[in-house]
């Protein structure tokens, strides 16, 4: 039997790789994919807990997370298209409208 902690560790590593990717990459598409990585990290945790605690709620939450991820990806990509059309770039550090 694989201990639960291993799954949690794996989930934490995947999550933080996502966070780090989001914080470091210039390309906005990769940033969105980093967000997907974070969500997947959380999903691993949820499914593992669901299995070990013998409770279906974790999997139901996973189901919801996947649906929201789909919605988020669609909107995020639409925003990228709008950005690309207006600024002709996919690099976030070239878009500095909020610079004070």
């Amino acid at each position, binding site marked *: 039997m694989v201990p639960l902690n291993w799954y949690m560790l794996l989930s934490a590593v995947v999550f933080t790789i996502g966070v780090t990717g989001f914080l470091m990459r210039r390309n906005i598409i990769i940033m969105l994919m980093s967000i997907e990585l974070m969500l997947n990290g959380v999903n691993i945790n949820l499914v593992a807990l669901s299995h070990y605690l013998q409770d279906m709620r974790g999997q139901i939450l996973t189901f919801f997370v996947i649906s929201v991820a789909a919605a988020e990806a669609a909107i995020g990509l639409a925003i990228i298209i709008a950005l690309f059309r207006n600024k002709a770039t996919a690099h*976030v*550090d070239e*878009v500095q*409208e*909020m*610079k*004070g």
Partner: protein
Amino acid sequence: MKLYLLIPFLPLAAFVINILFGRTLIRDKAHWVSCPTIIGSLVVSVITLIDVINGKIINEDLYTWVVSEKFIVSIGFLIDQLTAVMLIVVTGVGSLIFIYSIGYMHGDKGYYRYFAYLSLFVFFMLMLVMGNNFLVLYLGWEGVGLCSYFLIGFWFEKKSASDAGKKAFITCRFGDFGFALGVILIFLTFGTLHYVPVFDEVKGVAGQTINILGWEVDLITLIALLLFAGAVGKSAQIPLHVWLPDAMEGPTPVSALIHAATMVTAGVFMVARCNPIFNLSEVAMLTVAVIGAVTSLFAATIAIFQNDIKRIIAYSTISHLGMMFAACGVGAYAAGIFHLYTHGFFKALLFLAAGSVIHAAHHNDIQRMGGLKKYQPITYITMLIAALSAGGIPGLAGFFSKDEIIWSTFASGSPVGTLVWILMIAIAFFTPFYSFRMIFLTFHGKFRGTHEEEHHLHESPPVMTIPLMLLAAGALGAGWVGIPTILGGGAHIAHFLEPVLGHPELHGTHAQEFGVMGLSTTIALSGIVIAAILYLIKTYLPLRLAQGFSGIYRVVFNKYYVDELYNLTIVKPGLWIADSFIERFTDAKIIEGIVNGVPRSIGRFAGILRKVQTGITQHYAIIMAAGVFILIVLILW
């Protein structure tokens, strides 16, 4: 459905619509918004009056306005006999004046603004009379003052008009300060501001004293005097009467509505409303009676020598307000309110007729008028009715109310009552005298202006003359609801108001009542006759008299130098302090230092902070991640 709510809120709606859309959409159709709403208010007021006659008194809270520990005040309405009468005066006279304004203000570039302010004024006035606690009264009180300021300074391009507006506002401030203190003292004493509990408990605090700077002062007297200070300001009594004549700079319908029929009578209304408080303090009653009577005579004498048609009527208004206070001061509140009601009609009529004259002559100086009867027959007849009514000629509205006051002062039996009565008899001579001096100089004789001016003279349009005629009907017949018992009437209005205002103690026989009535009538008629002699038959006499008594003449003509006195004692030192101390030191050094220093340091600080805002998304995200990191650390430890 609370139908009565429509009474104040219809005019408020008209104000909101006119002020929002007046400049762009409504413009010269503003009266289509304001006039129907006030006529609607009038209709509802009549329905309410009928309800009240049938015994339906409303006293309810609708909305909790202020809650601050024990200080709980609600917006609530009290509709009793007194309120019902006031509602009829405000909306009835108001409706006619609104309609008249359509003609008078026609083509003015602030047309929509005028109707918006007028509607707002009516709203505040109605709140003032309908409120069921002192704070709603105060709201209306300050609101009408504000609207009065707006409307006096309506033609603000004219310096005299904007100055007059400021003068009215600042002068009233002296009285309102006292009024506010009175309201606060009422709250401190009774723990509530609602009329009913205050008036119920007021007997319990009779005789209590309060220590002010080492003086033991009777609590009730202090409250009553503070409240009366507000009334003195608002109703232009000595020593705060100076603003009302200057307020004539506003449009004439405004003078008719605000400075004759409604706002200035708010003081009388308030004293009558608070009669349970005033009744318990002899000192306060004495003050009210004396100030009222003295003001009345004082203003009546000034009115005799004025040449500005509106100022004559303004002083006449002060004089009549003084009579109302005198009546209240001897306990005859119903007589005071009755006079308020008839005065609303004939004084508004006098003003509107004067407005019609000014509309034709384009100036206010009666010395440059004359013979207008030929050109303006309707104006002449209606103004004549108003003057007869004001002068107290039997049968007209003013007679009954004035007679009621004179009889009440005579029959009150106190020495003060007698003194007041003597003054009233003197006024009974002066009122018809100055009214008819004005009429004779304006309408009779030959025109004394230039030929070109004579060319412009014409009767006013029907939209102005019809309200005149309707008001003339009021000035004729409005008093018939209060015909005294000895003349075969029922004194209905006194009985109607009795549940609110009580019943004055009168000591006198029928014979005495007839005698007093006969005396005042004779004196009034003699006033007219003397005016006719001086200004119709022997027209050289006034000038010779003025030369003969030049000392007295000069003092009275200059309004007893009250304005000059205030100028010297209050305005000049005030300006000096403002100029030398506040402007040079407080403003330049302290205020400017703070005002400029604070934003400068904020700007410097922001200059440092703005470097954080790089505009790069990840930098925000890094800060957010740092926040998450710190949160987790905090939770784990």
